[in-house]
């Protein structure tokens, strides 16, 4: 079932019509942020706290000959200098990654990427720490680097991971999904086959707050309190217990206010471990906060996929099959964050939103002398790459068939009655009404009128492009039988306590980096219990205060923890029913629920509100057998399946024929994330993601020179779009609830980041149609667009 709703007139509820439950509600967390009273990791100051700084490698590949730290140690402010040799003694030189590899905490043998951690200085203040880095003398024996991923598997290529016994090449994995023989057979008999190589370049999540930590090791009772920029505090606690050998019950991880994550803060970086080591060594709290260049050069990048795509269809436009070979650049250590079973993440959702007869993908991961990572940057584990591939291929096919790209999509989208839909690579899509969403976006855009305008402009030599993207995401990882990260099942918990006066606190295992958890999760409880959201506090980010769970990334907070919160509230509601029955001197089965109270069937005046029931529960009411004296509950949620948000995006661009400059004139985004909890927060998420998409499509990528030097180490080189590069976003929505989710919600956090880049690139390529090109690689900078107009689309890598 799909409901199409229009925007309510009231953009943000005022005091009078504030929703008790779902609806537009200003964010509860914002007063502290807009008043500058947020509490970020760098705001934390502990008594006697020292400061750490990391010496980083200036070259991409080099044998470490020697390190002399004596001058740095002589600096009056310096308390300790830690090197890889020191860590070897502590068995901490190497740490496990999230992908069953290891990563050097500090270099012991060889530098493997520019910016890699070489030594750690602990000093009285951050100025002394930074100054002392210049006093450390390091001798490197520079080696030839592997920069071009296409040459990483060449025989004779330098072996990056030669510390692993028996390793003679840079190959990490080959991974396949779909039936190759079946797919090849469909291709062999298809009327039309088109192919295209495309590059999704290396980009960076670049959160506004860089990564950092404050470690406070208390030697007497052996406890470690670690404040860190983490999207997954509970998983980090378990990993620290394993890596550092500190018993898990002695570790407390606090992830306070976090200034954006986008996947950048999922993994454990050497800096976090070094802050802990620094605190153990000095006996004092140690703060480490990276600067912008360190963040851009050393922390998890995203994408970096070279994809060879092929699409097969009948001559009248029925898409039959899709196949692709991918070369994935994982950098120097395989530190990609993803569920264990899926080394290429969820890339096998590349069949997109179409009903295909066959599909096959093969992904080959390789090492290069670049920073490790490969995180899901605002996407659920490589869905972004998958959507980009299929949406570009469909557009290329439309060009080949001389069909309108909207018409081709409408002809091939999975139909509402086909859900739950099993695709050819093993996914079961939960629900969708794709054509309705696409038609709605076309109506909002005035699609036919735009095509007419384009035709007129083309006749005058003006370059206008219209790009469509239709995406399906797979988010909310995930069912524990299939999905774990380093052995931890991808489930999440919630605990709810209703205090005697009817105010409540809900503790969740996921952690907000700006998504608005403190509002959204309060609204879920409010919807279930009928108490106002402002009477519900949401506690998150502190392992001592919250139940176990895997954290916030891959749009999983609402699909997983949101479900846990709804279920825990329902548990409380059921318990309240028994207590209300005791209070009303009736049987529980004779009670009926309306939002906020249980009442006697047929006698609405005889009822008890949640507040009354809670006072009863904590008071002197004679409780029924088996009911204890509180109104609390807890739940751990194991999702039965992932959720599949989708959307239809249309982008209109104007390209300056003289300069190649692209102006995004309009962008229409129709999203379906199932049940909408707070439409205002949803729109905010969509606006942010679309802006991200403009960045990737038009201006961003991390470039390296032939020596492996990172050329994108500042915001003057790695460009973040501003309000001036983006249009006034036109958002719309349909609502197709997830049938397996307790409240039907699917997640929205990353839809726009996933869906917008192909819409923009499709629009640019459409604008350039008069030049006869079928593809150009991102980012569509003025220089690249101009080159494409000369018939020279240059791949970035």
């Amino acid at each position: 079932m799909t409901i199409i709703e229009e925007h309510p007139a009231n953009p943000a509820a005022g005091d009078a019509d504030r929703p008790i439950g779902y609806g537009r509600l200003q964010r509860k967390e914002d007063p502290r942020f807009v008043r500058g009273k947020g509490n970020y990791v760098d705001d934390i100051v502990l008594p006697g706290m020292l400061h750490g700084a990391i010496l980083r490698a200036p070259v991409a590949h080099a044998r470490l000959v020697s390190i002399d730290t004596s001058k740095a140690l002589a600096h009056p402010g310096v308390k300790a200098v830690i090197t890889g040799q020191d860590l070897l003694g502590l068995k901490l030189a190497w740490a496990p990654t999230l992908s069953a590899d290891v990563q050097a905490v500090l270099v012991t043998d060889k530098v493997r990427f520019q910016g890699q951690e070489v030594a750690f200085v602990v000093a009285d203040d951050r100025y002394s720490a930074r100054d002392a880095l210049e006093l450390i003398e390091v001798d490197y024996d520079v080696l030839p680097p592997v920069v071009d991923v296409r040459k990483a598997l060449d025989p004779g290529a330098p072996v990056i991971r030669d510390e692993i016994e028996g390793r003679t090449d840079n190959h990490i994995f080959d991974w396949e999904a779909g039936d190759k023989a079946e797919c090849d057979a469909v291709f062999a008999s298809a009327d039309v086959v088109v192919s295209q190589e495309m590059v999704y370049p290396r980009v960076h999540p670049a959160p506004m707050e860089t990564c950092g930590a404050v470690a406070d090791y208390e030697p007497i009772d052996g406890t470690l309190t670690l404040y860190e920029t983490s999207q997954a505090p509970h998983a980090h606690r378990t990993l620290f217990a394993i890596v550092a050998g500190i018993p898990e019950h002695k570790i407390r991880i606090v992830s306070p206010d976090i200034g954006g994550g986008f996947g950048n803060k999922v993994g454990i970086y050497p800096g976090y471990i070094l802050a802990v080591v620094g605190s153990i060594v000095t006996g004092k709290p140690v703060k480490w906060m990276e600067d912008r260049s360190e963040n851009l050069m050393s922390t998890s990048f995203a994408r970096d996929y070279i994809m060879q795509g092929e699409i097969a269809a009948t001559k009248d436009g029925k898409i039959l099959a899709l196949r692709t070979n991918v070369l994935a650049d994982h950098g120097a250590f395989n530190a990609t964050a993803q569920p264990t079973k899926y080394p290429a993440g969820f890339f096998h959702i590349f069949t997109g939103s179409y009903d295909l007869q066959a599909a096959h993908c093969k992904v080959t991961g390789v090492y290069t002398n670049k920073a490790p990572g490969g995180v899901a940057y605002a996407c659920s584990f490589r869905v972004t790459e998958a959507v980009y591939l299929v949406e570009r291929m469909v557009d290329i096919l439309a060009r080949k068939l001389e069909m309108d790209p909207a018409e081709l999509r409408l002809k091939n989208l999975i139909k509402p009655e086909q859900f739950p839909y099993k695709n050819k690579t093993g996914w079961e899509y939960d629900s969708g009404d794709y054509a309705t969403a696409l038609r709605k976006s076309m109506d909002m855009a005035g699609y036919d009128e735009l095509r007419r305008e384009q035709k007129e402009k083309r006749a005058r030599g003006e370059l206008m492009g219209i790009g469509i993207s239709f995406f399906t995401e797979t988010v909310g990882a995930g069912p524990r039988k299939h999905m774990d990260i380093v052995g931890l099942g991808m489930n999440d918990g919630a605990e709810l306590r209703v205090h005697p006066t009817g105010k409540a606190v809900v503790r969740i295992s996921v952690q907000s980096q700006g998504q608005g958890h403190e509002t959204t999760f309060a609204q879920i409880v409010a919807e279930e219990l009928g108490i106002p959201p402002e009477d519900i506090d949401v506690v998150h980010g502190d392992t001592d205060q919250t139940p176990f769970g895997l954290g916030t990334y891959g749009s999983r907070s609402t699909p997983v923890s949101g479900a846990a919160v709804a279920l825990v509230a329902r548990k409380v509601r059921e318990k309240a029913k028994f207590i209300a029955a005791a209070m009303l001197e009736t049987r529980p089965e004779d009670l009926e629920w309306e939002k906020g109270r249980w009442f006697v069937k047929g006698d609405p005046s005889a009822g008890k509100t949640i507040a009354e029931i809670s006072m009863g529960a904590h008071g002197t009411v004679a409780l029924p057998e088996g009911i204890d004296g509180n109104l609390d509950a807890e739940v751990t949620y194991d999702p039965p399946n992932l959720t599949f948000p989708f959307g239809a995006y249309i982008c209109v661009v104007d390209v300056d024929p003289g300069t190649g400059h692209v102006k995004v004139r309009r962008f229409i985004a129709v999203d379906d994330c199932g049940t909408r909890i707070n439409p205002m927060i949803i729109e905010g998420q969509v606006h942010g993601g679309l802006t991200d998409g403009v960045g990737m499509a038009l201006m961003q990528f991390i470039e390296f020179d032939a020596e492996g030097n990172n050329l994108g180490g500042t915001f003057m080189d790695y460009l973040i779009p501003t309000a001036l590069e983006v249009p006034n976003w036109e958002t719309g929505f349909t609502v197709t609830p997830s049938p397996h989710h307790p409240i039907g919600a699917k997640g929205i956090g990353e839809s726009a980041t996933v869906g917008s880049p192909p819409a923009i690139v499709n629009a640019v390529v459409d604008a350039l149609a008069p030049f006869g090109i079928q593809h150009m690689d991102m980012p569509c900078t003025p220089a690249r667009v101009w080159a494409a107009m000369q018939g020279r689309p240059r791949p970035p890598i």
Partner: protein
Amino acid sequence: MQIPAPFDYARATTVNDALALLERHPDSRVVAGGHSLLPMMKLRLARPEWLIDINDLYELDFILREGDYLRVGAMTRHTTLLESPEIARLFPIITDAERVIADPIVRNRGTIGGSLCQADPAEDLSTCCVVLRAEAVIRGPGGERTVSMSEFHRGPYETAVAQNEILVEVRFPILPRSGSAYEKVERRVGDWAVVAAGAAVSLAEDGTIDDVAIGLTAAGIDRTITEAEAVLHGKKPTEGLFIEAGRIAAAASDPIADQRGPVDYKRHLADELTRRVLRHACARALEVRHTTTQEG
């Protein structure tokens, strides 16, 4: 947080005080808006021992018309230039450029003097000053001297201002029936120019081009492109002449390949943007001429 190397700091109260501080501290840099120098210090690419802060030198914050000159104080902020109706009327090239210099936050602090003295090859006001045939007034221990922009520029990040001197003023000659324009291609607002072009023309009473200056930003040439100007002198402006001038300007340019684009693209922009700014500058000059005639 990016942390500069240790440095000392002094805040000058007058121009003479600043000159004395510069004399006393040979390894020092003057800081005005600081939006170029401070990032370079944070990246430890610049490491002066002393910073001489001249933000209190309000005596250098002025825009004054004096005879056939417009005098602009070195501490005039970008925002002031952008918002000045007099600048917009007399030298619209500066208004054009200021619209695309960095972003409002930088423009609120950055100054014309700081921009010129930083002498970044991709800096916009340098090109504007070159094509407007401005003069720089430099004050040092021995008093003031005035130099032309071609003398002022000594190459990337180098100017005629000695370590113990300060740029105090820029003087723009006001010509009758003149127009000017600037256009820049950038990857994103706030980015340095991929390439930009500026042009200024003044027309004779008969509508022929009396004087013309063409300049390019971030294209490896910091002089006016006299060989392109030559094809326009004494002629009535036409599209054909603009095309010819663009072609010559592109040939004279000497850009380098970088992340903003390859050499062939930048040469193409030199051509394209030269044509555009000439077209625009001439249209503006004709408008001024027309208005003057009507008023007359």
